[in-house]
């Protein structure tokens, strides 16, 4: 966050607040409710903590009161305990590992194909006409419905799970990459052309570097989508993984394990998201440079 903004803004804000409250005798409008306003780091993180603590508190209270059957809503303690036994007796680490592998493999396969394809769609109108309507059509087909076909074509091994995640992310990713590439300002491209750049040079030295930050954001967002397809992918003859654990727990009505699995996926996803954001800051310092 911009420190100068934090220190300089309050003064200005206070002056205007005083004048309005004095003149019209109205209640002081707090800077917290300024449209697109700013917050200090401390207020921001305090509010973030409250946003996380309140649901957790409600959950704890609801289960502590004993009004809700534990089969429907396990307590946070139950879930924590389940995580521990999962770790010590059921090889939690292996489940996390295999799930991460499937998600990353499916997502990476999508990226390897979607990046060049999206680049071509976003750069050449001919390729766009050829492929974009088709991609738009396919992306509306539910990935879950492909499961029988995937089992038929790919089998029921690891490949099948990776394939489901691939189908779920690839088509969306192509369109997002194409859009990122199309957003490169025309002036940047034309400037290179009038400086003597060839077509290949415009792509290599302008379009790709210019769209890189947006592409990394697209990869971050599609990684999130890949995780949402995990449970679906592990419906296919799996015997390990977080999604599989959730499905199995459902069969035995182990609500605490379902909770644990869902929360774990959330935490891992959040971690990966933050890693992408960090990478963004490190890779594109010019976007975070102060003026």
């Amino acid at each position, binding site marked *: 966050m911009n420190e100068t903004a934090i220190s300089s803004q309050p003064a200005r804000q206070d002056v205007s607040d005083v004048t309005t409250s004095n003149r019209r005798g109205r209640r002081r409008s707090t800077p917290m409710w300024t449209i697109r306003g700013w917050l200090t780091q401390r207020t921001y993180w305090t509010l973030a903590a409250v946003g996380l603590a309140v649901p957790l508190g409600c959950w704890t209270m609801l289960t502590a009161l004993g009004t809700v059957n534990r089969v429907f809503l396990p307590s946070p303690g139950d879930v924590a305990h389940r995580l521990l036994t999962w770790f010590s007796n059921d090889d939690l680490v292996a489940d996390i590992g295999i799930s991460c592998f499937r998600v990353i493999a499916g997502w990476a396969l999508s990226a390897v194909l979607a990046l060049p394809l999206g680049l071509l769609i976003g750069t050449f109108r001919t390729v766009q006409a050829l492929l974009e309507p088709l991609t738009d059509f396919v992306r509306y087909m539910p990935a879950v419905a492909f499961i029988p076909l995937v089992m038929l074509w790919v089998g029921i091994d690891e490949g099948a799970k990776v394939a489901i995640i691939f189908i779920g992310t690839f088509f969306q990713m192509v369109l997002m990459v194409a859009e990122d590439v199309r957003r490169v300002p025309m002036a940047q491209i034309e*400037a*290179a052309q009038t*400086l*003597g750049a060839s077509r290949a*040079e415009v792509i290599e030295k*302008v379009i790709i*570097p*210019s769209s890189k930050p947006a592409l990394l954001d697209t990869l971050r967002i599609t990684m999130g989508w890949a995780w949402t397809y995990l449970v679906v992918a592990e419906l296919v003859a799996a015997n390990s993984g977080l999604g599989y654990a959730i499905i199995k727990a459902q069969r035995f009505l182990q609500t605490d394990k379902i909770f644990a699995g869902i929360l774990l996926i959330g935490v891992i996803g959040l971690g990966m998201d933050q890693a992408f954001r960090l990478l963004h800051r490190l890779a594109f310092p010019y976007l975070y440079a102060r003026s």
Partner: protein
Amino acid sequence: MNAISCRAVHKVFGTGVRKVTALENICLDIREGEFVTLVGASGCGKSTLLRTVAGLEVHSAGEIYAYGSPVRGPGAERAMVFQNYSLYPWLTVMANIKFPRQLAAHIRNRTSAEVEVASGRADALLQLMGLEQVADAYPSQLSGGMQQRVAIARALMARPRILLMDEPFGALDAQTREVMHDLILHVCALERCTVLFVTHDVEEAIYLGQRVVLMAPRPGRIDSTYEVPLPSSRAVEMKHSAQFLALKSQVVERIRDTSGLRTDLELLQRLAKRAG
């Protein structure tokens, strides 16, 4: 030989009922080293003409010659400066200016001595445009005026013989613009560039141009040409001279006549009456 020569250039956008004639029978010769400004009401095709000379648009008929060879697309000898968003935000100021050096068009047949010269040129341009202090900054950290200085330096890097400018100061405030006017005149005289400069600001057009070409809309065509009766080295005081003001009012009047837009005095009076 003329630096730029347009022979009966036509440019048509669209087909059938949606056909629009953007340029009609444009004939324009620009001498080597001349500074020509293009003005006109909006929609008169002045930007289209500039972009066609740059090779960014393809003309439908006629021929454009740059130093005798017909224009068939963009080329390094015709560098263009845009109004904004043309700098590369991921490159520092220095790297932006040196950008042309990465391109094959400028690397081919280069001896190491020439590379040395080119490197010195980047430094010289940095100094000439007053950018030494911000050489390592990113474009986003600069003001609009400084950004345009970088864009001009980058365009000049590969020693283009022709500099095409599309409202390069259109987004700048009036004070910054005045500074940029004197800077661009100085730099272009030093570099001996032929300049074609598009603007909607008549004062700017007269102050910068040795010749002002006025275009009219629907269809886009050259309406009239004015030789600027000022000495070749310009100074701000000249903006208040009688000759300057006379030419300015003449050009402004002509643009108003050709624009097809008029203040409807009758309507205003009727509205005033109703309000009163």
